[in-house]
């Protein structure tokens, strides 16, 4: 398809979508240009999703495959649910970037290489014994060899910039070139550079010169036939912002504090990939947010518990290794029946594992990882912007049932972005806290007293009174308590009652009208297959189900955003579909739970590579299941 836009003589190919991956050394600024290109595309009106992928080391050895950092963005004129399967375009700033990403390309893809980075030493560092530009490695692809570094140096030379500084602008050259190829207006980018580097005029000017040079190179060099155009997507009307999961989560927590009237206290210990939640909240002092960087993960949970006792919307955030450490405090919060949200941004484990890579391997830890019978609600976000809704839901449940709630996201959601349509804040549902402010029980001798464990008959939630209220002084602790009074009790029948009550309280959320269903359904009459997933795999599963339907299969999709209590409808769906497959980024954690609940032979599709599913691969594996 070719079109000509008025005012320009250049013919443009109209595309429905494109997936671009910027790859280079971790010091090459690939995350930055990826972010910039994403924002430009968002402002232009495309729907999109992104997937950053970078090493945990701040500076892995330069030029090696281990040090490659990449950023993939999928932009489209229609609905986008994943960051894309395989890049249509790979920008490789050096041989290591080429080598690390080549296997993801499908034949026919475009590869733009910075030929200046391909001398013998660079090739050796990347592990190439022959030059891939010459040995036929790239025969299946359309390759553009661009001297990015030298052209950047030329463009910045008149500015008198030192060679080393000038070289650092080469990412903007690449960005300028891609902006030309995909007809992105660069005005917002110029403004961004001017603002960001205002205090460093030399850097600013070098980046601007590199950007212009890249763009002009596209226009004048006869390497490329035509630029491409991707029309704005027909998103529902409204105001949008592009948001990643960690920021969305932080905003959701602030919103929950506003909607509940409780002050937000966020206690956390630095850990990848959750630290950005702490960073975002620490900036937001104007919203009354109290953040504390605790001495360790245990302290962060302890501080949150103390804050909860004192009347805060108390939150602690971490990643898998930190959740291990918070287990004891979660047990106490279950016993004290205090509202608290624990965010786990899952990453590849066990132990340190791969801190910057994604997995869904903490599900069973979240569900069961505490001694004793210590049930608590577990919710999971299904996309970057859904982290806002999930934070609101977690806070709502925590406050309503006086319980700690674990909120699961993962590295993919934390750093991935998508457009989010801003809601009208006044239309958000308030969170009813229902604090107790006076004595709630009459003694046999007629005296009014306060019973901290007096329960709401519907939700089974206990009464919550805050320190500072005269007459409601009470002491609560981790020793088993007598229901009602909250006094220490070692009586067998009371313990049995309390253990069952704590479970029943969580189960009651399943039928609570104030609580969301926790289930996203896309059913199809007469479906041969039900695909079940949870959390961040929603996009990939949705994409895969669309493909299967396009191929004529009848497939239903059920996606869980609450893992405990499981949505009531789920078991029915599991037993009524001829085949059920559960797709998750672990070795079958939800799959086992579903089998247990339904006694069905639920099949599992599992991946533990540290990367999200691609819709293509998932569709292939689901098709295999259909064939069996």
């Amino acid at each position: 398809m070719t079109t000509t836009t008025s005012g320009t003589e250049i013919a443009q190919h109209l595309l429905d979508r494109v997936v671009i991956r910027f790859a280079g050394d971790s010091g090459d600024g690939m995350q930055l240009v990826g972010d910039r290109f994403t924002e430009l595309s968002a402002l232009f009106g495309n729907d999109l999703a992104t997937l950053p992928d970078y090493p945990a080391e701040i500076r892995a050895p330069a030029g090696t495959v281990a040090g490659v950092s990449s950023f993939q963005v999928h932009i489209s004129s229609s609905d986008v649910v994943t960051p894309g399967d395989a890049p249509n375009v790979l920008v490789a700033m050096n041989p290591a970037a080429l080598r690390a990403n080549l296997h993801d390309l499908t034949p026919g893809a475009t590869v733009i290489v910075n030929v200046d980075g391909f001398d013998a030493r660079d090739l050796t560092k990347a592990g190439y014994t022959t030059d891939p530009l010459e040995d036929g490695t790239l025969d299946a692809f359309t390759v553009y060899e661009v001297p990015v570094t030298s052209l950047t140096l030329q463009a910045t030379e008149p500015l008198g910039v030192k060679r080393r500084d000038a070289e650092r602008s080469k990412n903007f050259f690449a960005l300028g070139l891609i902006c030309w190829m995909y007809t992105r207006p660069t005005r917002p980018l110029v403004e961004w550079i001017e603002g960001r580097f205002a205090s460093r005029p030399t850097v600013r000017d070098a980046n601007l010169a590199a950007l212009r040079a890249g763009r002009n190179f596209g226009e004048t060099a006869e390497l490329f036939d035509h630029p491409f155009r991707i029309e704005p997507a027909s998103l529902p009307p409204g105001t949008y912002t592009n948001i990643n999961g960690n920021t969305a989560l932080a905003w959701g927590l602030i919103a929950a504090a506003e909607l509940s009237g409780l002050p937000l206290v966020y206690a956390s210990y630095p850990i990848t990939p959750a630290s950005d939640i702490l960073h975002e909240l620490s900036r937001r002092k104007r919203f009354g947010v109290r953040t504390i960087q605790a001495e360790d993960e245990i302290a962060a949970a302890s501080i949150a518990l103390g804050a909860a006792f004192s009347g805060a919307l108390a939150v602690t955030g971490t990643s898998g290794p930190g959740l291990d450490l918070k287990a004891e405090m979660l047990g106490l919060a279950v016993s004290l029946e205090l509202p608290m949200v624990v965010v786990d941004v899952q990453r590849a484990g066990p132990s340190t594992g791969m801190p910057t890579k994604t997995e869904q391997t903490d599900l069973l830890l979240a569900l069961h990882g505490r001694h004793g019978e210590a049930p608590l609600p577990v919710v999971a976000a299904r996309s970057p912007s859904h982290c806002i809704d999930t934070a609101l839901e977690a806070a709502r449940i925590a406050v309503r049932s006086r319980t700690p709630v674990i909120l699961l996201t993962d590295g993919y959601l934390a750093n991935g972005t998508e457009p989010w349509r801003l809601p009208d804040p006044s239309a958000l549902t308030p969170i009813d806290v229902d604090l107790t402010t006076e004595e709630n029980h009459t003694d046999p001798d007629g005296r009014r007293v306060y019973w901290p464990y007096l329960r709401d008959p519907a939700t089974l939630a206990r009464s919550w009174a805050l320190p500072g209220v005269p007459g409601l002084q009470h002491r609560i602790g981790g020793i088993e308590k007598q229901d009602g009074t909250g006094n220490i009790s070692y009586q067998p029948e009371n313990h049995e009652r309390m253990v069952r009550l704590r479970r029943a309280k969580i189960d009651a959320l399943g039928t609570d009208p104030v609580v969301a269903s926790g289930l996203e359904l896309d059913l199809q009459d007469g479906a041969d297959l039900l695909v079940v997933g949870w959390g961040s795999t929603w996009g990939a599963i949705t994409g895969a189900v669309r493909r299967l339907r396009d191929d004529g299969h009848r497939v239903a999709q059920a996606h869980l955003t609450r893992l405990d209590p499981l949505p009531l409808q789920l078991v029915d769906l599991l037993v009524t579909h001829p085949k059920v497959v559960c797709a998750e980024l672990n070795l079958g954690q939800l799959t086992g739970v579903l089998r247990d609940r339904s006694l069905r032979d639920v099949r599992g599709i599992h991946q533990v590579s540290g990367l999200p599913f691609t819709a293509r691969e998932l569709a292939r594996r689901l098709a295999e299941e259909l064939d069996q």
Partner: protein
Amino acid sequence: MTDVRGVRGVTPVELTRKDFMSDQELRWCPGCGDYGILAALQLMLPELDIPPHEMVFVSGIGCAARLPYYMNTYGVHSIHGRAPAVATGVALTRPDLSVWVIGGDGDMLSIGGNHLLHALRRNVDLTILMLNNQIYGLTKGQYSPTSGVGKVTKSTPFGSVDHPFNPVSVALGAEATFVARTHDTDRNHMQEIFRRAHDHHGAAFVEVYQNCNVFNDGAFDDLLRRDARPDMLIPLRHGEPVRFGAEGQRGVALNEFAELVVGDVDDLGEDRLLIHDEHRPDATLAFALSRLAADPHTPTPIGVFRDVRRPVYEDEVSTQIEAEVERRGRGTLEELFRSGATWTVD
């Protein structure tokens, strides 16, 4: 937002010990030093003029950690070692409350050592009472991080080979702004020290020598026997020379290596005696005083080692928030959601 906090001063004008006693039966072993400590606390608290509903007692696990159950205040009996961190959460959320932390030597110096250090370093406004009996009582008699080398317990049948902590030195090393030591056999001294610890704005650490008559009876007898006290307790009094003994005949002075030595005043020379200054910004001399007694068998300083002012953690947090709100106005969700680049689809 509804303000559910109580208003200071709405409770009885005249508070009594009874106002701070809960209806729970005390369950420490008969003869335990904790009884005297609880009594001293409950006798002193009415003097503070703070109603019980504005107090929170936080504890971890151990015999001492049961204390909050006996107080008619708000209280959390939390997890072994975690009390300073839980209390930090309380103080951070509610700077208006009077927050107390009660624990033992195992609770605060072993499993919870890290939390204690950081609560002191941050200078959270907490009054921390560490009841030191040099033994694990609740688990029935294992050696603790303050037990001396050679101590024979159930877990050290051949004698402990662990070098113990000196709690006052630890607190001073952790940048504590108020550090004191008292003991369970002198109610007046305890009340005085507890009151001063409470009055200190910031983290106050008090080591209380406490007798465990079941598992470590008489651990402090060398110091605390009535006839031993004059020669074994070195009372620290601000602005006065550090001296002790029935006739004040013993004293403490600096030697040529900048170390403190104990000796007869006649030998040391009266004008060379150390003048105790609680408010010295530098903690070196306070630390040196803490090193005088490596174990409770030689003359041991009691009283306030250090009392200095430093910005208080939760005050600083509040100040930053208030300054930002003052400077740019209270944030709204509308603003928050629009704080990144936005675009409109018609």
